[in-house]
């Protein structure tokens, strides 16, 4: 029981990462009809917004401390961040400590800008091109973006810790009357889940309750007719692309304390995100979210040791990677357009 509860919590967390990326992908698929292989790179850029902000906050004055020596025997250079000099020790380190949440504010304008530039500069020209061309150009873009990040920040992961007060974990077991330490879960992951739920809610509310959202939904259903009504659908789609980029970027920002950002983290997520989008059904936002959580929870369960050793005689270590694809196949065979897909979208 406790093990199951634990993996459900875990799955919600993984699922929310998948759901956030898949949501952005579906928005772009649905509105623009573009297969965006660079979407994982946007997630990665989001995470590197945190790294950048951390670097900016840690910009330092260098003073030489003659009492200590460095590894070559020269006097040690001691660095003090400007921010500590300006705001004093306590406030300065508190700001650095909170760099991940602060990066949300930092990342939103950057991601909107990145999305805008990408759409206007490149994607716009590919609306009418075959999907194969879209894949090639966005894949090329993804490689270029991640190589630029690698050239700037190196290949090693860079630690971006969550604020101190979120360290440690919450004991669910005690809370619901189970033994101590039976079901524990890190605070930051709870924050991550809540944040994802909030973002997903906001995107849906935005599409559902604003005129802008209504036009975009209409455009997703029938782009030509909306265009004929004299509505500048292109401009709205550009904004939509920016929003999709921002959603991916924010997912990356909040994910950075969970896994230290590295330049290839986008590619790691990309394939499974595509599976999630397609299993959810092309062009369906609720489908993407549903599939994200389903596959996330499934992956968590499959990585349980009990599942791996299910067939007493043989132990199957990477069964979690296998089950998730197996289930994807079964869903696609049983439901031809995924969980909630619409007919005729990307079927030709």
């Amino acid at each position, binding site marked *: 029981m406790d093990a199951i509860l634990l993996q459900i919590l875990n799955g919600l967390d993984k699922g929310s990462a998948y759901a956030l990326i898949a949501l952005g992908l579906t928005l772009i698929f649905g509105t623009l009809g573009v*297969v965006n292989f660079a979407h994982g790179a946007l997630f990665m850029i989001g995470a590197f917004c945190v790294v950048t902000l951390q670097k900016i906050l840690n910009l330092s004055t260098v003073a030489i401390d003659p009492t200590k020596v460095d590894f070559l025997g020269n006097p040690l250079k001691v660095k003090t961040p400007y921010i500590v000099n300006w705001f004093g020790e306590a406030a300065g380190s508190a700001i650095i400590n909170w760099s991940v949440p602060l990066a949300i504010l930092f990342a939103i304008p950057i991601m909107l800008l990145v999305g805008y530039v990408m759409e206007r500069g*490149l994607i716009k*020209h*590919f609306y009418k*091109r075959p*999907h*194969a*061309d879209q*894949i*090639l*150009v966005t*894949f*090329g*873009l*993804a*490689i*270029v973006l*991640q*190589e*630029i990040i690698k*050239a700037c920040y190196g290949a090693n992961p860079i630690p971006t810790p969550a604020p101190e007060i979120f360290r440690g974990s919450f004991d669910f077991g005690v809370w619901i009357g189970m033994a101590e330490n039976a079901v524990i879960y890190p605070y930051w992951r709870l924050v991550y889940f809540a944040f994802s739920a909030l973002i997903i809610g906001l995107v849906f509310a935005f599409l559902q309750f604003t005129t802008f959202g209504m036009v975009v939904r209409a455009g997703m259903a029938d782009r030509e007719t909306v265009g004929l009504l004299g509505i500048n659908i292109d401009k709205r789609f550009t904004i939509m692309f920016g929003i999709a980029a921002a959603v991916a970027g924010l997912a990356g920002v909040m994910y950075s304390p969970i896994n230290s950002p590295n330049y290839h983290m986008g590619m790691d997520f990309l*394939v499974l995100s*595509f*599976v999630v989008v*397609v*299993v959810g059904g*092309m062009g369906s936002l609720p489908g993407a979210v549903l599939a994200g959580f389903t596959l996330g929870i499934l992956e968590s369960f499959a990585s349980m040791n009990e599942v791996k050793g299910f067939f007493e005689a043989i132990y*199957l*270590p*990477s*069964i979690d*990677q*296998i089950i998730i*694809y*197996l289930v*994807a*196949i079964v869903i*696609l*065979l049983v439901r*031809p*357009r*995924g969980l909630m897909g619409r007919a005729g979208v*990307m*079927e*030709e």
Partner: protein
Amino acid sequence: MFDKFQNNDRMLMLFFIFLVLAGPILLAPFGAGYPDLLQRFCIFGIFAIGFNILFGLTGYLSFGHAAFLGVGSYSAVWMFKLLTMNVIPALILAVIIAGLFSLLIGFISLRRSGIYFSILTLAFAQMSFSLAYSVLTPITNGETGLQLTLDDPRILDAANTSGSLPSTNFFGLTMNSTAKFEFFGMVFQFNVGFYFCAVMLILAFYLAMRIFRSPFGLMLKAIKTNQNRLNYTGVNTRPYTLAAFVISGMYAGLAGGLMACTDPLAGAERMQWTASGEVVLMTILGGSGTLLGPVLGAGFIKYFENIFSKINENVLHGWFSFLPDGLEDLIVWVLHFFVGKGWHLTLGLLFMMVVIFLPGGLLQGASHIIDWIRGKKQSSSTQISNPNSMPAE
């Protein structure tokens, strides 16, 4: 010029045979005239030609073709371990097993079309990768890769007492034997393994050409153009697409088998999605639906992977040593982002450039250049024959 070739099969075939067989000489000035890379050009050429039979003709975009290549490699290596070091049984088994495997996956995946088909093939390939990487370790030797050992049975071969591993051979002709010739300071290497792969590539190319020109090929093109209309006229398209899928799977199996013939080792990473993606990129980069394009694309990507990744700052300094010091350092500093550890960046930029400026792939770029040299007259005729050739802007 290339368009002319498309219409003149004999010329195209002769041109192709010449290019392939003279590879060691033509490519030596570009630093690519050594056996391993030449073999890779042929092997990935075969892989891409096969992929193009499916994707270029029917428009079905498979994201799992690396699985068939991997299966071919594993079968070939097992043949080397159990039966004999002769490459023929290994290749036959590789093609058969890959064919059966693609029949199974194709039969299921082709129930869907469009992106749903792509994701189904991707899922199958990723499952095969995970299986090979870990679950099936007794058969695949996991991450390390399946290798030959001294105490393998090899029941058809004479007992091995030399204390070193036997090499793969074609009826006694060892694959890794190379004749080296020096000619005005340049070394040309003629390698048995390469010529074996080259013959296979030529046969594969010839077969693909026949398929392209056959009624079967025409049917596949019709499926790409409008499958619904075909269905309405009462044609059941599934057997045709399945046949194309299996043929391209067998091509992949042949490529995988040849990889094992030239280097008897099979690793699971050959089956990963990045490897499947690579063949998609090769085909689109070269020009999907054309005969020469995929081979060209395969050559390009492999060239970048093997040559650009080996250029380091020392080499760059060597190239630009004739420039004044400051300028030399500046140029080397700029260029070092694009070579060595930055070769991925160059590749990514290349993908973008090709697809933005040459929508029909490299092959079209080549014909543009040739037309430009010959004057504007012919260029207008290319425009007509290729309505997609408008640049993106």
